[in-house]
């Protein structure tokens, strides 16, 4: 892959091949229809888990 040529704040040219670029949001994806086995998100507490998507997935046994 060809590296992107970018300029940093000091006007210095930097080569970045794995740059995190802004991307548009796509329409919200429903967890129920997503065919997923797990969920990654900010760390939940034991209490927060009970209402989480992860709990719903675990209960369904998928």
């Amino acid at each position, binding site marked *: *892959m060809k590296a992107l040529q970018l300029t940093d*704040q000091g006007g210095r040219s930097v080569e*970045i091949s*794995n*740059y*995190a*670029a*802004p*991307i*548009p*949001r*796509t329409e*919200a*994806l*429903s*967890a129920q*229809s*997503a*065919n*997923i*086995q*797990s*969920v*990654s*998100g*900010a*760390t*939940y*507490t*034991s209490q*927060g*888990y009970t209402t*989480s*998507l*992860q*709990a719903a*997935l*675990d209960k369904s*046994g*998928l």
Partner: protein
Amino acid sequence: MSVHTFDTMGTIVSVRVDDELGLVDLEAVRAVFQRYDGVYSLYDDASPLSRVAGGELQLADTMPDVRETYAQALEWRNATWGLSTPHRPDDVIDLSGLVKALAIRDAGAVLDGLGAAWLLTVGGDCLSRITPSTPTWRVGIVDPDDAAGLLGIATLDGSRRALATSGIAERGDHIWSRNGRSHFVQATVLADDIETADVLATTIIAGLPGDLDRVTETWNVDVLVVDRDGEIRATPRAAEWVSRPTSVVG
């Protein structure tokens, strides 16, 4: 598929195995987390690290494992320009972030002994193993602005096994950051190992946009972040998690 859950380290562990998981093996996984928690928990006054925090035990007098973990945490602090640090603002040594990752790593080693595919999820961080019969695991990335929605789906296909997300959505602004307030509200990192994924996700939340760029320049990782305005940024491979085809849903 067998699915088991248990409570440890203040969160929930979910274990999926593409086979039966016997009680002995499940207990071996649970024991890994309990061993780490017993040593490093700051919620248990009797743990060695709590006693260090309380001043009744010198760090130099702790068992070698504790000092080794602390040394690892300092190496990560140096590698992440001070952003991922075991030193809380109140000077307490807090190794819980790294220790959770180490426990996931060791539990993964136990599960590898089964010879089946498995997916281990601990408080939103995932480590996986695939096999020819289960060639991928699909993991949804939570939308920090909509707890019932997903930003996208990461496919764990064995090339990078560990996915970690750090954020301020579930526990408030608990990560100390450069300017006192996080620029990014959620950061998801896919890496070869869970320590790298977990530490770098925390690093990005603690840092500024320039730190995100330094992370993606320095490590071979895929990253998806959301900022305070709800804007998404992603590295090329992580962008594919979001712009997914909708027609393959089963």
